[in-house]
């Protein structure tokens, strides 16, 4: 079969459409998760969604919709635990991870379903997606993309600094729950493409790649969506061509292609950051102090541009002069 024939097949066209929309939607939500340092939340939701799929297989309802419901409940639970549990949110996440996965495998067994059926959802089976599934995927993905882009100023502010956002009159908890629900929806959307166990990769890796090169949130978000789409469609096409010679699953191909993108941009990012550091007067400063160009008439207060060697010391900077170290502390200098 020639490539032209392959791409004219309806199942391949459905798969390409689903891959494109999933590839754009997953990193859009992923950006907000990474911004709140919740990169693994997608993974947690994915594990919980396994139980949802198993319930669908057991009851005969559509696994997509049962997964949406269970994943949303799981995501809201994770968000509430995170909000109230202070630093131990990761423990709660772990509890949900394992509970969801174990529940899913157990329920699948109860329904006498073979593990192979569940595996479709665990690792994706984009080429078996039906026309109805494609419509659902496209609609849900479009909603996720629309909300993530349309509400980006609010979602950005809430993730950046929740306390400031609250004093600005934003409903912080509402927006946090919205992100959790969006994450749950995009997990289930991506479930058929890359599978529940790999879904977090599509949410996080494009973001990690794009932030190697970007300085602003807007470019990070846009580039992540573009990279996600490229990896998703590219991975599917590569898998399709490779399938002439060997059995190549599209899901893992998409994830590995995405990771390859990260590996390529990483050294560039390292070089860019290195160059940015060289612009600062003291190259050995991990705190990243820079010369400020806006000082007024010169008064000799120790500062980054006073000419004395600055040495980071805990939470402040010591200035070395005449053999001892001065640390400005309010109106006086501490000797160190």
């Amino acid at each position, binding site marked *: 079969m020639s490539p032209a024939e392959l791409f004219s097949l309806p199942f391949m066209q459905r798969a390409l459409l689903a891959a494109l929309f999933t590839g754009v939607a997953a990193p859009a939500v992923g*950006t907000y998760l*990474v*911004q*709140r*340092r919740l*990169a693994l939340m997608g993974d947690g939701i994915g594990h919980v969604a396994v139980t949802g799929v198993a319930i669908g297989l057991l009851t005969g309802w559509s696994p997509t919709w049962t997964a949406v419901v269970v994943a949303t409940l799981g995501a809201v639970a994770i968000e509430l*635990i995170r909000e*109230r*549990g*202070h630093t*131990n*949110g990761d*423990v*709660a996440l772990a509890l949900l991870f394992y509970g969801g996965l174990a529940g899913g495998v157990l329920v699948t067994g109860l329904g006498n379903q073979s593990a192979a059926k569940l595996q479709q959802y665990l690792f994706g089976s984009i080429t078996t997606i039906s026309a109805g599934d494609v419509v659902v995927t496209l609609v849900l993905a479009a909603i996720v993309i629309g909300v993530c882009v*349309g*509400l980006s*100023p*609010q979602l*950005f*502010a809430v*993730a*950046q*600094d929740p*306390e*400031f*956002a*609250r*004093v*600005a*009159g934003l409903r912080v908890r509402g927006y946090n729950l919205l992100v959790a629900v969006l994450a749950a929806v995009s997990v289930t959307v991506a479930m058929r493409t890359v599978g529940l166990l790999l879904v977090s990769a599509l949410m996080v890796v494009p*973001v990690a790649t794009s*932030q190697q090169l*970007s*300085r*602003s*949130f807007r470019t*990070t978000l846009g580039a992540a969506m573009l990279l996600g789409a490229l990896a998703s469609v590219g991975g599917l096409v590569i898998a399709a061509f490779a399938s002439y010679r060997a059995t190549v699953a599209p899901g893992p191909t998409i994830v590995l292609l995405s990771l390859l993108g990260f590996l390529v941009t990483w050294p560039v990012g390292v070089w860019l950051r290195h160059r*940015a550091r060289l612009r600062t007067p003291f190259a050995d400063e991990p*705190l*990243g*102090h*820079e010369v*400020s*160009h*806006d*000082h*007024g008439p010169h008064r000799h*207060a*120790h*500062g*980054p*541009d*006073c000419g004395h060697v600055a040495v980071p010391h805990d*939470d*402040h900077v010591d200035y070395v002069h005449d053999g001892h170290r001065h640390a*400005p502390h*309010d*109106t*006086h*200098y501490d000797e160190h």
Partner: protein
Amino acid sequence: MSLTHTETCPIRLTDGAVAIAGRPVLRGIELVVGTGEFVALLGANGSGKSTLVRALTGLRPLTRGELLLFGTPLDSFDQWERIGFVPQRSGAASGVPASVREVVSSGRLSRRRLLRPLGAADRRAVDDAIALVGLADRAGDGVGTLSGGQQQRVLIARALAGAPELFFLDEPTAGVDLHHQQVLADALGALKARGSTVVLVAHELGPLAPLVDRAVVMQDGRIAYDGPPVAAPETDDHHHPAPGDVRRRDHVPHVSAPLERDR
């Protein structure tokens, strides 16, 4: 001081009390701040000055007493565009790069409708705010690449961008070297000159001292002194001995169970 009418003064807190996880942290707080005042909340670590600012901004619920902001009870207050909040610096950087302009732009959110792009007035306000804190040449740079003092100024610019009438600043000079404290003081001086009301928390005033009209000194959760700033030794140039107990005391018991609530 033209609008110090009792009904409309920016802050009126009567008999305020705050408890965190059941432990009383603030009690018997009476605080009225008039329009245009520059108030410094002073006190040792753990004296409750940060908690008071968090209570005044609605971040901490009052367990007793009543708080009126611009004459409106806090529960029904919705004119958030009149309030600017500058939290402690830790919030400036996050997991994804964000440019100075983007962070400052979130200061306009209280004045923007949902799903509307930044208008020309918004852009102008953002540029003005960035220029006022002296970061115009860094507007496109990532916040994470700035120094601590510059990040602090970004947070001040974010509050400025919304053109609020009442500013709350939580320890704006903490961990900032003297040079940058002076730059901060200049930015706050510009605010004061515009007639804004400013309430700031400070451990020591340093270069901010000349701006302060009124000092409120907190001690063990109560107001110990409220009046004009004492001829402050802070303005002298000598070494201060460290306060007796500088260990960090917050009143929150350490919570270790995943489902514990904090209040």
